């Protein structure tokens, strides 16, 4: 398989601040590759270097075999770009914007079809200023796809969107890939990376701290699952901890978190163990649920802190 993106030892500084340091990665054709990390981790700087929107200080980047600095114009024809910080003139309609951007390329997708595909048909005569956040992002996705790109860059695509809009954008991204396009995206939502990406690079302080498929990252972690519930019953945490598989118990007021290994074969799931134990104690409990370790936990373990916006 060919590498669509090839980055070696990328380095970018702003004055004395090192934004990206010694970053290397490869993205294969047809992948959805995600870069996750907190704000300020260097994701946007990296993606902008790859897009040819930003000059860098060291290392080498090849995008579809092109140098993004020296061959910026050639690159523009074959990639699609959704920028984190950009806008469109407010008083143009969706149709006018797409028609305009289509005129920048030799062989654009007919925009009415694109509008249809992105669920914007009803909005094609609306001014850009009248669109919701989700609709506007769809327009930006349409702009990124209008030149039939082989590779699209999506920077913080779902930031600021409500959960429903976010989910429908995820479906769109999967569709883009199904159409044969490689996707490189950044996000600070671990959930998004986990559900959407084939491979994920976790970034912190300008470096990649881990890079693999989400499942492999989580399983390498070997972290505990959690059972969470609410009870007003006073019990001895010690005896709960003695339960098979339980490694730790935390209690804060009525909220209790039980940490433990995923159940071994032949044994009951941790959640059943805990529920049975509570019933045996005659303790009333509610809101019980189980959480599997996820990329948040991977990040926590790798960096020693939780990832918050």
């Amino acid at each position: 398989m060919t590498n669509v993106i090839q980055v070696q030892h990328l380095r970018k500084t702003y004055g004395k601040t090192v934004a990206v340091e010694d970053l290397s990665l490869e993205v294969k054709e047809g992948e959805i590759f995600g870069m996750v990390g907190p704000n300020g981790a260097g994701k946007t700087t990296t993606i902008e270097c790859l897009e040819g929107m930003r000059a860098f200080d060291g290392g080498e980047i090849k995008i579809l075999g092109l140098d993004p600095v020296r061959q910026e114009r050639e690159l523009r024809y074959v990639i699609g770009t959704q920028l984190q910080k950009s806008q469109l003139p407010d008083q143009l309609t969706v149709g006018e914007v797409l028609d305009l951007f289509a005129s920048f390329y030799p062989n654009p997708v007919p925009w009415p079809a694109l509008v249809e595909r992105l669920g914007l048909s009803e909005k094609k005569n609306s001014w850009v200023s009248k669109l919701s956040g989700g609709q506007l992002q769809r327009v930006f996705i349409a702009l990124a796809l209008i030149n039939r790109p082989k590779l699209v860059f999506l920077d913080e695509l779902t930031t600021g969107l409500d959960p429903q809009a976010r989910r429908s954008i995820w479906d769109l991204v999967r569709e883009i890939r199904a159409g044969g396009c490689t996707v490189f995206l950044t996000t600070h939502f671990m959930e998004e990376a986990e559900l959407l990406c084939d491979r994920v690079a976790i970034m912190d302080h300008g470096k990649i701290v881990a890079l693999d498929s989400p499942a492999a990252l989580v399983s390498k972690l070997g972290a505990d699952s959690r059972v969470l519930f609410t009870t007003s019953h006073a019990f001895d945490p010690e005896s709960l901890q003695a339960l098979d598989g339980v490694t730790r118990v935390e209690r804060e007021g009525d909220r209790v978190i039980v940490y433990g290994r995923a159940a071994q074969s032949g044994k009951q799931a941790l959640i059943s163990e805990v529920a049975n134990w509570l019933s045996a104690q005659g303790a009333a409990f509610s809101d019980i649920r189980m959480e599997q370790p996820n990329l948040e936990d991977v990040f926590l373990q790798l960096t020693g802190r939780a990832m918050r916006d």
Partner: protein
Amino acid sequence: MKSFWKLTLAEVKLYFRFPIAAFFTLGLLPMILVLLGAIFGNDPAEQFGGKGWLDWAVPGFIAMVIAISAIMSLPMAMCTYRERGILRRYRATPVSPAAVLGAQLVTQFAMTFLGMLLLIFIGKVFFNLGFAGNIFSVLAAFTLGCLSFFSIGLLLAGVLPNTRTGTIVGNVLLQPMIYLSGVTIPREVMSEGMQKAIRFNPLTHVATLLQGMWYGDAWAQHQTEVLVLGAILVVAGIISVRIFRWE
């Protein structure tokens, strides 16, 4: 070329869909012309060099339209585009900076031209506006004035950090530029020192050239104006292209 014309078409649409800018270039001066025309009329008067007020005022008003487009509309449009990341979005496409800038300039030129036509139309229809020059000379003077002033506007757009500062700087430059160019008060009634001082105002040269061509002067009488405006065009033009920024 296709992108350039599409961009220009979009700019023209945006111009009319954002009526505040359109009002200052196209609406305000015709309104003032009608009001003052109703007061002063167009009968020959001594303080206007034996011309009627309107005959005297219209070429100056045309110079004002040029100044408003160049010093306010153009830098405002570019600053807003840059500040809001619209230029950045264009940058992420293969469209050339020349097409983006060119579309903006052509639009501003067309709107300034329209502003001039409106003034002439009002003058002709309501006040029997006189004209003693050559149409092509007036058009040439108008075009030179626009090019020269638009390059100043682009220079401002490149230098100004944001739209807020742009509005303030634009006003601070525009007001004295207009009052001290001999388009509101005839140069003839100014003191000699004042007349010398306003020669440092580039708008004075646009106004003088337009007035001259309007009354049928020969180009040879206006070498200074042509030279000054040409020099501004070259210098400001080169600098503004060099300092152009997408973001």
